[in-house]
């Protein structure tokens, strides 16, 4: 009743091509942004920022990057953690070794370094695909794990192997308090989400999807697989690299290679699949699901007053997690984003489905 588009005529190309063609969608997204930028910083508690919102934002950004590769271009990657690590360590080195390096520039340079590594490990994708590619990206994962642990140059010869950054600021504004960190992440995420959305609607994005749907056919109609696949790897690892910088600098502050282990890669892949392959919105749904679920599962026994040891809880979380993933794949292989769009379709006709 409230959500329908009749009466909303598009009278120009610009109106036809906007991201949210329905006025109600625009209002909804405006409200979400309002809540995110204004209400949350005023109302949120420190725990909410530290444990939920900041990890959610950063992982959503990483999932977004991965979704470009897996969801839009159909190239599976198990090395997302590695590209995050490359971004984080590269940005760290730029920040530490060059005096007066601004955070934003270091972050973008970190992203660019991740791009270079991503394209390098993406080269095998020109010959191989699917599971074979998964192993190639696994190679990236284990190689970077090792490199950042053993090659002391990357960690600026830190004796403990762990590195840290302090005194972050953007344009003179310190990023120390949880609210400031949150707002910084939120801004970066919004910028990249918009850029990614537009990129996927562009010629490049359509090339990726053509390659994903059938690469041989795409090549036949004149899409260069080399170009399409490598741009997907480049864009994806850039975003993932930036997410890595945020994760290390803003969320962790001090980190070691274990922060970007294979578990992180799997976690991000789960987000993309559960959220919905080939959907920008899906990355956010997936990240929300995977960040919030363990926290809830952690709390549930306490509500019922069942004392469980930490180990048992973590195993139970593992089990429920695994079961839910399987359940989701069976119930809705296209993820939460598909459920969302089904819901919207239903809503358009509600309450008179005729």
């Amino acid at each position, binding site marked *: 009743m409230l959500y329908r588009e009749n009466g909303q005529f598009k009278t120009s190309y610009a109106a036809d091509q906007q991201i949210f063609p329905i006025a109600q969608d625009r209002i909804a997204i405006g409200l979400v942004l309002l809540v995110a930028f204004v209400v949350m910083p005023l109302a949120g508690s420190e725990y909410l920022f530290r444990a939920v919102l900041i990890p959610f934002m950063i992982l959503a950004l990483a999932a977004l990057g991965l979704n470009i590769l897996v969801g839009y271009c159909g190239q599976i990657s198990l090395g997302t953690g590695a590209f995050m690590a490359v971004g984080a360590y590269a940005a760290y080195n730029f920040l530490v070794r060059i005096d007066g390096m601004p955070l934003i520039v270091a972050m973008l340079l970190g992203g660019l370094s991740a791009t270079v590594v991503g394209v390098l490990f993406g080269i095998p994708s020109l010959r191989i695909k*699917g*599971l074979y590619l998964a*192993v190639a990206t696994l190679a990236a994962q284990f190689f970077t794990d090792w490199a950042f642990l053993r090659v002391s140059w990357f960690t600026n010869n830190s004796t403990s192997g762990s590195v840290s950054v302090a005194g972050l600021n953007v344009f003179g504004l310190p990023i120390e308090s949880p609210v400031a960190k949150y707002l910084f992440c939120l801004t970066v995420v919004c910028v990249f989400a918009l850029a990614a959305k537009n990129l996927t609607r562009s010629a490049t994005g359509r090339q990726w999807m053509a390659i994903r749907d059938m690469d041989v056919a795409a090549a036949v109609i004149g899409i260069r697989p080399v170009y399409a696949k490598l741009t997907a790897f480049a864009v994806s690892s850039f975003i993932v690299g930036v997410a890595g910088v945020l994760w290390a600098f803003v969320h962790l502050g001090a980190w070691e290679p274990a922060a970007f282990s294979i578990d992180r890669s799997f976690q991000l892949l*789960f987000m993309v699949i559960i959220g919905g392959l080939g959907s920008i919105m899906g990355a956010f749904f997936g990240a929300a699901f995977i960040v919030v679920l363990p926290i809830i599962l952690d709390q549930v026994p306490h509500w019922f007053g069942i004392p469980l040891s930490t180990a048992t809880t973590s195993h139970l*979380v593992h089990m429920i997690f*695994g*079961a839910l993933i*399987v359940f989701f*794949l069976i119930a809705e292989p296209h993820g939460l984003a598909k459920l969302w769009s089904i819901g919207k379709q239903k809503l358009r006709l509600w309450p008179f489905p005729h």
Partner: protein
Amino acid sequence: MGFFLETLFGGLMAGMLYSLIALGFVLIYKASGVFNFAQGAMVLFAALAMARFAEWIPKWLGFDNLVVANLLAFVVAMALMVVLAWLIERLCLSRLVNQEGITLLMATLGISYFLDGLGQTLFGNDIYSINVGMPKDPAMILEGTFEGGLLISKEDLVAALISAALVLALALFFQKTATGRALRAVADDHQAAQSIGIPLNRIWVIVWSVAGFAALVAGIIWGSKLGVQFSLSLVALKALPVVILGGLTSVPGAILGGLIIGVGEKLSEIYLGSFFGGGIEIWFAYVLALGFLLVRPQGLFGEKIIDRV
């Protein structure tokens, strides 16, 4: 020279164990086209079951005989793996028929998370030992040929023999029995196999059971060597480069791939490791597989991948 040979033998033995895990991958991939990420979790689960039942059964029944306890534990653990295979088929795979490869891969990742959690909830999360009476003392051989002889772990030797026997048994099972023929038919073409009356569901249960059996054997051998602990399920990731090297669809490929990776890892660690600052065992296998993929994507014995529009 003696040192080189010792390293070589060490690598071969480690490689045999990788092959055992890789075998599970190949079996399931061949028969159902599912790339089973949960194989590592199955190895951990089977090993945990084996270790704990070998401890519990004598307590419950009140006897004290290592051999009987181990045998009973083996039977119980195997039964558990069959039940598991049946459940996986019933609850998961049969509902995901005709889905894309990536969906199935994700499903097995989910299963692997589930099994990791379940195994440690049921059986505890300490480090357990499996004692199946493997000889622990090292042996010297060829003392006449080399000065000082060659030091070889008897345990590794027994493990390698068991692996070889398992591979032989599986090869016979696949080639000579009716079920094995049915499995190969399903591997070739699901629809054709079904149309001549091969029950797909039952075949999948069998294949997952056989993979469970391979996981159990691998788990026992790894477990008695290193102790049963969570890291066991990570060893299984090493099986990925092995199957890539050998070819996803080839049983001999899994064996040879495992041996190459095992030997390559040990030799490179010793002879190249110092150039890189050590610890290159972690990634050597993957980078080797990566390099191999660029030259020969289908692996040593895999079927050539042909694209058609």
